[in-house]
């Protein structure tokens, strides 16, 4: 288990922060600009690949994975 603890813990941290980062980028890219507002055909709230529900599920999985792997990674003497 110790052998896999570090990569799994790092994966858990990635699952915790990358999906919210994607939500931020999607939110920024869908920000209505002056040009977009003028163009009535454009969609200012385009959904990206990361939905709110998917992000929350990935973060929850990351949470479970973190508490499973981190105790083996962050040893007492660290």
């Amino acid at each position, binding site marked *: 288990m110790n052998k896999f603890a570090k990569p799994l813990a790092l994966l858990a941290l990635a699952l915790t*922060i990358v999906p*919210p980062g994607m*939500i*931020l980028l999607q939110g920024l890219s869908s920000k209505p600009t002056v040009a977009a507002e003028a163009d009535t055909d454009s969609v200012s709230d385009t959904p990206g690949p990361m939905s709110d529900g998917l992000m929350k*599920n990935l973060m929850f999985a*990351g*949470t479970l994975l973190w*508490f499973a792997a*981190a105790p083996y990674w962050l040893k007492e003497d660290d």
Partner: protein
Amino acid sequence: MADNEEFERKRVPDRALLGTKSFVGMYAGEHCAGTEFMLGPLFVAWGANAFDLIVGLFLGNLLAVLTWRFLTAEIAVHQRLTLYYKLEKICGRQLVTLYNFFNGVLFCFLAGAMVTVSATAVGVPFGNAVQMPTFQDKYPTGAAFIIICIVLGILMTVVAVRGYAFLARMGHIAAPWMFLIFLACGLVVLGRMNTVDLFELIKTPAGQEGTKIPFWGVVAFAWFCNSAMHLGMSDLSMLRFAREGKQGWATAGGMFLGHYLAWICAALLLVYWVRERAADTATGVPPGIMAYDAVGWAGLICVVIAGWTTANPTIYRAGLAFQGMFPKLLSRTSATILAGSVSTVAGCFPAFAMKLLDFVGIYGTILAPVGAVIAVDYFLAKRFNLATDYAERFGIPINGAVLLPWGISVGVAMYLYNYVAGVQAFYLPLPTWILCGFLYIVFSKMLNRPTVPA
């Protein structure tokens, strides 16, 4: 600590000293807690704007780190004694008992605030069955909320009695993940608001006359919210394990992750609710609900764990303080149960969590002044021809030259806080600390014998 020795009544030996990494971890874990979910939104509720938060918090936290580095750490690495033992040497055993009483009670109230914060997360799955407290609530909001607080309080107390080491370990493990959850909350609500322009987002609400916490208030709060630990020298007990004073810089890990980024991210949660969900800044939104809305179950778990991992050591420390008062009457277990019971009752009253900005200021104002006595004893005793470690040297149980300055300075501060308009609690720790130190020199000259030949 090495060999599980605590060195409570002797200098820490060289073999037990710790590296910088240990202190960065300890401070980062301790200052990324459940209360951060309360403090960020409270700044918004009090009308702080983006400049106040970004620049004010930076400056305040920098001043806090400098205080730790050049005051607390400096004394800690030269003396290598716990606060309690150092106080006993200067003030006498009986005065330490009085200090323990205030310390224990205030720790219980702080743990109570964390019980409240955790309860706002535990209550979320129960929906409307649990009436959550708002910023304006001081008293229990209903039977369901009380039951949740009591259950959480009992669990926290049982764990504090039986497994402090487990919880300390849990806090150590949870810290990196908790910080990322705070960050995630901020990123998600920024994404939902389609902007990262904090200056556009965080503004003093229109119609609010002025702000309850101006720029210098934010600076003062960030500087003094842990004043009991740096100015008050409580962290002598921790930093005495440092190899050299410059390891005091490690406190920056806790300040700039927990008290800067985490506070701003938590503040953004309420900003989002105010802008997009028409929430009222005056009443706020419980942290559990905001975290769940932003990042789901991970957020709820974070609120519970953040409150839990900080409340447990706090209950444990309060128990130790009570036991220190009556070492023959109370075992550590019964003292911890007493502390847990007080914390649980306090947790049922949202006042401690919802008035956290005030409470933390009062906490520092009462406890920090004794640190001025230690600072005078260390830095100025020779210059003013005062005897160091006076109580130990002359074998007295209570040093009046400490009791009087402490009582007078805290009394003046509490008078100003209660009766003078515009004086917020978080401005008071430093003036109280300076007054106490000055009066200690005056009363030592008046009441105590001068230094004696070694």
